[in-house]
């Protein structure tokens, strides 16, 4: 009964996605979709022939890694500093979690309004007399390194990770920290010996989910990313919406690559955790 339940649940959740993957796989080799002309690996060849693909993939991985790392660090620091029992911990938790319901779209718009070369930051700098025109402001959006995009995505994902970090410390962290303290650990040692490991292990699944999401996110990316290198989600969407149906196959190749990034991150994490479990 219970076993059948697990199977049924897995089936119901996964089927639409699997159909999508199967569709993309078939469409990428010309067996389905518009402009399909029978089996052909031409879409794969031309997708990998385009130097934009690897540059875009690399850029998306960089942005996702940097944004995820930044958000994780911020969440750990805030949760550790404002752990239950410290002063103003309640207020800090509330404030940290507040931006959680904000949509990525709105986050992107805010990124433009605040970080752009004529954004609020630049206007503040102008008022302060540091710059005399927008061009004098460092380029934070549409920039080669994606600084603005990374900052916006990190800020958008931070509340989610902070929420989990707070509850991790409230659940298990406190007793463990007390134990460490009675064993003679002090201040920084408690953090590195107890707080950090507890947070790290508990946060990991959420961190992986954030990474997978950020690597494939479109809304904020299209508003803040440069046109070269073209981030993988942007390149995928561009191929998809190309007027010529010939590009559709390539779009499906890119969809599958995006899938590999997302699923790959999850699989790597699961494998690492399994090894960890065997080792201990």
């Amino acid at each position, binding site marked *: 009964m219970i076993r059948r339940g697990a199977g049924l649940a897995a089936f119901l959740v996964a089927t639409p996605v699997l159909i999508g993957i199967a569709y993309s796989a078939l*469409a990428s080799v010309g067996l389905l*979709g*518009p*402009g*399909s002309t029978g089996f052909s690996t031409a879409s794969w060849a031309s997708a990998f022939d*385009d*130097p*934009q693909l690897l*540059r875009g993939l690399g850029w998306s991985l960089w942005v996702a890694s940097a944004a995820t790392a930044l958000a994780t660090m911020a969440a750990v620091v805030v949760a550790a500093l404002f752990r239950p029992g410290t002063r103003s911990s309640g207020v800090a938790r509330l404030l940290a979690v507040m931006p959680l319901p904000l949509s990525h779209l709105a986050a992107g718009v805010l990124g*433009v309004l605040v970080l*752009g*070369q*004529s954004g609020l930051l630049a206007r503040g700098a102008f008022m302060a007399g540091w710059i005399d*025109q*927008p*061009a004098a402001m460092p*380029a934070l959006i*549409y*920039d*080669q390194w994606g600084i603005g995009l990374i900052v916006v995505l990190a800020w958008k994902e931070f509340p989610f990770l902070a929420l989990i970090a707070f509850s991790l410390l409230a659940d298990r962290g406190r007793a463990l920290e007390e134990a460490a303290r009675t064993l003679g650990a002090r201040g920084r040692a408690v953090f590195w010996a107890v707080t950090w490991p507890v947070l790290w292990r508990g946060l990991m699944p959420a961190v992986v989910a954030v990474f997978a999401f950020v690597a494939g996110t479109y809304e904020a990316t*299209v*508003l803040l990313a*440069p*046109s*070269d290198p*073209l981030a993988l989600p942007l390149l995928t*969407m*561009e191929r*998809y*919406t*190309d*007027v*010529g*149906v010939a590009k*559709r196959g390539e779009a499906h190749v890119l969809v599958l690559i995006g899938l590999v990034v997302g699923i790959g991150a999850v699989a790597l994490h699961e494998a690492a955790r399994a090894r960890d479990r065997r080792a201990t």
Partner: protein
Amino acid sequence: MRGWRWLQLPALLCGALVMACDRVAPEPTSRAIAAQPWDSVLAQARGSTVTWRMWRGDPSINAFIDQWVAPRLLERFGITLEVVPGQGPGMVNLLVTEREAGARGSSDLLWINGATFASLRREDLLLGPWADRLPNARYIDTASVIIARDFEQDPGGYESPWGQVEYALIYDSARVPDPPRSVAELGAWIDAHPGRFTHDQSFSGMTFLKILMYALGGGVERFQGGFDSTAYAAGRDSVLGWVTRHRAGFWRLGATYPAGVAELHRLFANGEIDFSMSNNENEVISKVRQGILPATARPLLLRDGMLANAHYLGIPVNARNPAGAMVVADFLLSPEAQLEKLRPEVWADGSVLDVSRLPEPWRGRFAAQARDPHALSPDSLRRYARPEVDPEYHERLTDDWRRTIRANTPR
């Protein structure tokens, strides 16, 4: 009307799935209505509801439709107007899906042009011919190639024009009192003012490149009459060569380009760049009124010629109320509606009527129409207007620009 990639994705997705489907013959009853005498059409339309599917992204257009058109339709023809959002590829997809599911139509009237019209005709999803039978059709400026041809396609009575727009650059008269007025002058200006010019990556930006291509490739006539790869290769080389020559003067050294025209407007309005651009020469009027562009913004036509196109109304084959839809389309063609639509404080959408054919007092009223200081004269609009050509030029140019200029790969 701009299609946008967010909206195009699902549309094309859907299109992808239905491409292989068999075509079902449209119902003959709807076709018959299009052939009935006008009085009978009016009689059938009375007391009915017309569902109009159109782009709803501009508040001034919405206000014109909801607060000016709708009450008059109800008062004069007893027609209740219901407006639902939808545009471009999304509408094609919707109609295909409805036909597939055998569902009754959910729209009676569609706002379409160019590629959308082509897809709908290809799929045989439009009712017709009916447009030539509208009483007000006799005032249409049939001499204008912009109106008579929709991206080189013959409307053939399957769509009725109701407005036209011309591509224009936008500049700030306060910042650039003496703007360049030709492609050559623009090149020189870019070299002299580095970092102050760019175009977007979307449809509008690519249309700008196409305008450059015609200008540098010997005029639009070279490209008319279907796609020609030799003409294209020459045109492409000249436009990409021009861009490469002036690239060092582009915003961010031409290393990156804004995603869409909204981003371009934002950069322009905040003084990061000195030019924006638009498919519609009058967009600057409404955007200034809405406080989105500075009051000193002005449209600018290049002497080498700008692209113009008209927008149309079509009736889907599965419309429940084709008679009512025809009455609405006719009302929108009326001098009264065209004049109201033209007013800068309303929409500032170009009229499709030949004013010389209008009876008085309309001729006088059109002439007396106070022009917005931001608007261009009809003469210059007409002089620089060039028709759209085979869509393949657009596709190929977009593709080549992306692979070379945008990707920063030397050709």
